[in-house]
């Protein structure tokens, strides 16, 4: 009676051992392939809202609607070093709205009022138009709808506002749902250091 048990036990142990070895080997093989973190990021050179060439079109809202997170992990980001600091910013103001008595457009563009405008540098008290203005996007309000990005884009603006994935909000899906919907394949998976660099809209030829 004890012999069938021990043979079975032995077989059991051998098979278990070999499965464990296979699993261990597999794990080691996979671990060798592991490297630094890879994250999803918007390629500004492909994104409809920021790539050069399409003017006057309706802003693409897919980054807002497709993201699995409640308030999309994609937000508009103003690269301050590239911003024109214009008095009448087409991303802040709705420049087709009626002009008020101060000479500024009466309506703002952002549907969630996420952009704040404040004068910077030395102000000219007699001529407020003669001044630089800083435009700061409140990321807690922004939902990545892309309207400001589309308006800031050249030639109307200088293209300093782009859509970026924010990694304190992004959950890092295996396949970003926005990437599945994006018509220009603008969502790419790249190493995190590259993803945090300022966006390249177009290589300079001068």
């Amino acid at each position: 009676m004890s012999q069938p048990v021990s043979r079975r036990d032995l077989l059991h142990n051998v098979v278990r051992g070999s499965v464990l070895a296979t699993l261990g080997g597999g794990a080691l093989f996979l671990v060798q392939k592991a490297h630094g973190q890879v994250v999803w990021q918007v390629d500004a050179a492909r994104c409809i809202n920021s790539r050069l060439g399409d003017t006057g079109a309706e802003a693409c809202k897919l980054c807002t609607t497709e993201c699995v997170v409640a308030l999309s992990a994609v937000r508009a980001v103003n690269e301050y070093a590239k911003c024109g600091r214009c008095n009448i910013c087409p991303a802040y103001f709705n420049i087709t709205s009626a002009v008020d008595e101060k000479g500024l457009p009466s309506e703002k563009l952002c549907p969630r009022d996420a952009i704040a405008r404040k004068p910077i540098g030395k102000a000219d008290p007699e001529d407020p138009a003669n001044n630089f203005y800083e435009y700061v996007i409140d990321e807690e309000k922004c939902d990545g709808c892309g309207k400001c990005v589309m308006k800031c884009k050249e030639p109307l603006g200088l293209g300093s506002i782009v859509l970026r994935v924010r990694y304190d909000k992004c959950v890092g899906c295996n396949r970003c749902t926005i990437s599945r919907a994006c018509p220009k394949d603008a969502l790419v998976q790249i190493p995190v250091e590259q993803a945090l660099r300022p966006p390249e809209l177009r290589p300079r030829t001068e």
Partner: protein
Amino acid sequence: MEYRQIQVIGGKGSAPGQFATSLRSLAVDAHGQIFAAGDSEIKVFDAAGRLKRRWSTARPVLSVAVAADGAVYAGQLRQIEIFDGAGKLVNTWRDETLLGRVTAIGFVKDGVLAGDAADRAIRHFDHNGKFRNNIGKDNPVHGFLIPNGVVDFAVDSQGIIHAANPGKHRVERYLPSGPLLGHIGRFHGTDPAGFGGCCNPTNVAVRDRIYVTEKAGPRAKVYDFDGNLQAVVASAPFDPNCKNMSVAVDGRGVVYVADTVKLAIFVFEPVTV
């Protein structure tokens, strides 16, 4: 007033009369010859649009202007090269700080004006290149508001400088010695008489009237000296992605506009109604 397009000169390409990568500035001399600055070359076309002459510049050329004596001034990075009418280099004015990016050149009785985009000001030199004074820096923002990176101005027959200040949506008038005399134009998003967008007008030319070009909704317009809109020269033929389109006017009132994307010179003549 109305205008109609009569010609297109140049275009994008590698042929002698075409432009490869850029078309930045236009000037018209007394004989009706058109001087075009693009790539690293000055090209001279006759009134019919045929290429007459062309010569290279040391650096990519940003602006061109023709003096009364026929000398051709080519503005570049940190220098101005002066050629004779045939294209031979006569002189080079170099200055690291005063001629950072020379995007416009003009002439007054007692000297030469150069628009420096790096410092957002117009420099006033005498005929030998000695610096006299700045124009446009005497304000709290120390210069013109030029997010588009180009200072453009023109000098009228009275010697008054008409400079485009795109950030303020107006064309300002200055004396060569510096003081601001006045301005025309205002921001308006939808009214064609106003300047729309973030920074318009981008370029200006003057002869009896003020001719301006705008971007983002590219168009060329004509105003009188009181700021009343006289005509919209054209908007349709320009590539929608143009910006900083140089404009020039000749003695007959023919308007030349440089399309910076199509790299072609559009020629419009006034139609007597």
